[in-house]
């Protein structure tokens, strides 16, 4: 678990080069300030380099990566605070490939080219606006939205072009520079990609992969955030000694370390369950555990830094805001707890 394998290291290294850390955090800071961020440079390069096919089988020209590879990649990039939801995008590509319908294949081809398809988070998250029934995260990057309607036999997995949906460009701004959009979608819109029980499985797999991706991003960013905080208290001196020598802080740091290590073990264990009976429970558990851990770490990171931790100048502010946004997205605590109890 501790180390990512060779292939993923390569991908991770390439992405880090494309979007290196020294540029990444300033970009994240700027994106939050000049909103919405619509610079597709990185996105385009990511697609051009063929990484969208990461999860597709090698027989179909994909890279045949496993869910563990997927998690390792997303986690390793977590500290870069990429503006694009790389995880959901990859999950959506897998969804399209699994549908095996002409409509899905057409979209897949477009997506592997230059379209960008974001999946609506349609399940379990409560919409608060009027009669909307779907929430789309980071909708400002989407061209096409995949969503689901109906139950059991009537279950329909559909895709709709953003331009065809009223209100899908009415974005609500999130504190990390991302966005959220509440919208009304129903079975009369767009075209069907798959239907019935099989479609539901495909959709649930995608939801689970999104939860995994969110968990991986969170744990990637808090690993850095915790390290920053510990490094800071080793240097920062008060009362003639390093703040990091105070036992009360040390014990709290140790508690966070335990939380991070164990949440990470659960994340990779969940990745192993993809395709098995426990997938839904495992991915829900990994998401909520990662979110709880992340919020604990970023709050304590601010506190460890003291006043400078509350300023926008320290990177912890960026990590904090992203952690809040990702905690809210792709499965709230309540939705994940419900999955875990039911499973």
């Amino acid at each position, binding site marked *: 678990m501790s180390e990512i394998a060779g292939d993923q290291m390569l991908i991770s290294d390439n992405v880090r080069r494309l979007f290196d850390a020294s540029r990444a955090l300033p970009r994240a800071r700027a994106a939050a300030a000049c909103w919405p961020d619509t610079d597709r440079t990185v996105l385009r390069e990511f697609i051009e380099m063929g990484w969208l096919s990461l999860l597709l089988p090698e027989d179909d020209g994909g890279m045949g990566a496993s869910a563990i590879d997927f998690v390792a990649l997303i986690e390793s990039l977590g500290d870069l605070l990429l503006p694009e939801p790389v995880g959901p995008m990859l999950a959506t590509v897998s969804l399209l490939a699994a549908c095996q319908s002409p409509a899905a294949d057409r979209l897949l081809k477009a997506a592997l080219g230059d379209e960008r398809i974001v999946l609506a988070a349609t399940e379990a998250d409560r919409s608060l606006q009027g009669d909307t029934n779907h929430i789309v995260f980071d909708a400002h990057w989407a061209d096409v939205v995949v969503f689901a309607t109906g139950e059991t036999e009537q279950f329909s997995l559909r895709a709709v072009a953003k331009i065809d949906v009223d209100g899908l460009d009415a974005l609500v701004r999130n504190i990390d520079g991302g966005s959220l959009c509440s919208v009304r979608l129903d079975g009369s819109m767009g075209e069907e990609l798959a239907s019935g029980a099989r479609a539901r499985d495909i959709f649930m797999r995608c939801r689970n992969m999104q939860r995994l991706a969110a968990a991986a991003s969170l744990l990637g960013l808090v690993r850095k955030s915790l390290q920053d905080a510990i490094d800071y208290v080793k240097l920062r001196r*008060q009362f003639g000694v390093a703040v990091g020598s105070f036992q009360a802080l040390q014990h709290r740091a140790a508690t966070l370390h335990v939380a991070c290590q164990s949440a990470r073990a659960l994340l990779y264990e969940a990745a192993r369950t993809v395709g098995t009976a426990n997938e839904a429970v495992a991915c829900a558990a990994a998401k909520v555990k990662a979110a709880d851990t992340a919020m604990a770490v970023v709050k304590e990171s601010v506190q460890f830094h003291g006043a400078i931790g509350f300023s926008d100048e320290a990177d912890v502010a960026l990590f904090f805001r992203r952690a809040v946004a990702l905690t809210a997205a792709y499965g709230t605590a309540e939705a994940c707890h419900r999955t875990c109890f039911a499973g």
Partner: protein
Amino acid sequence: MLRSESEAELAFRREVRGWFERELPAELRDLTFRPLPDMVMPWYRKLSRQGWIAPHWPRAFGGMDASPVEQVILMEEAARIGAPEIPTQGLNQIGPILQRFGSDAQKEFHLPRILNGDAIWCQGYSEPGAGSDLASLRTAGSVEGDDVVVTGHKIWTTWGHHADWMYALVRTNKDVPKREGISFILIDMKSSGVLRRPIRTLADEFEFCEVFLDKVRVPRANIVGELNRGWTVATALLSQERLILGSPGNALRAYERLRRLARALGTRLSDSDKLMIAKARIELETLIASFLDAAEGFRDGRPVDSSYLKILSTETTQFILDAAQTVSGAYAGVKFPMDVDGTTIDFSELFLQSRRLSIYGGSNEIQRDLIARNVLAMPRGRA
């Protein structure tokens, strides 16, 4: 507040509520950010003319001498209507300190200006190398004739870029133990040599600033207490500040956010949301009960454990806003207030702001050290 109110208190509440409804302009209600002086000072002056700007000041100094229950009523009604945050450094920090330590001239000049809103104050304590370890401060002042000439660098100065005056700690003698060479000095921010740089915060606003002092000439008459005897004044202020920080004002504002969220969600509230709300309510009422107990004890001459109140009030506020985050679900990261079925909801701003509460006014770690040592009499040593 759980306590049943007397007839007079009920009448006061009705008066406050009615007056707020009439007098508070719509554009100043339900703001999630702290409005700039231009926007908020007219309201400050209105409160002042009504006599409600300084509930806890003695009547002798133009205050209201309000009972603890009346203070809570004012805070509850302000939270309820969504009244804006006003500058409080004058009212809560330097005002009471001048009442206790100030010269007659200082009292005469400054107190009325604080009351009527002519002077906004800021606190010049923290420095880049002196945060929790305040006594390490290096901003230096040398006496030259009737002036003290001050040079140094203050930071994390809340509202400093809007302030007219700063009360600052300045090292005026380097040759004695750290705490014995510090003076407490009032600095006019319009003095030449004062430079300010606002600092953006986690909550993406300019809550505090850096203040650079370059040979700023301050009249000796602006020293509060005696030269080199500022540490006594500073610690008195810190202790009093913690008492103020122990007031339930922030927690009430926080709970109002949660209450609105509950109202807007209505039947969409889940059982676990209801549990969170019940827990938040219990914490809020615990804080109010503790504040009333401490404030009434203070009135009756009992000593106040201000560290306990500071920890309690700040962590209660954080707890309530954490609960609001949970109840917000997928919307917890939304940046600006949103209309939810006719109710304006702030999802993130107050939550982000609340993270500073456990840092400022003496971090909660410092407060726990103080309780362990002074209240629980636990041994020093491997602190």
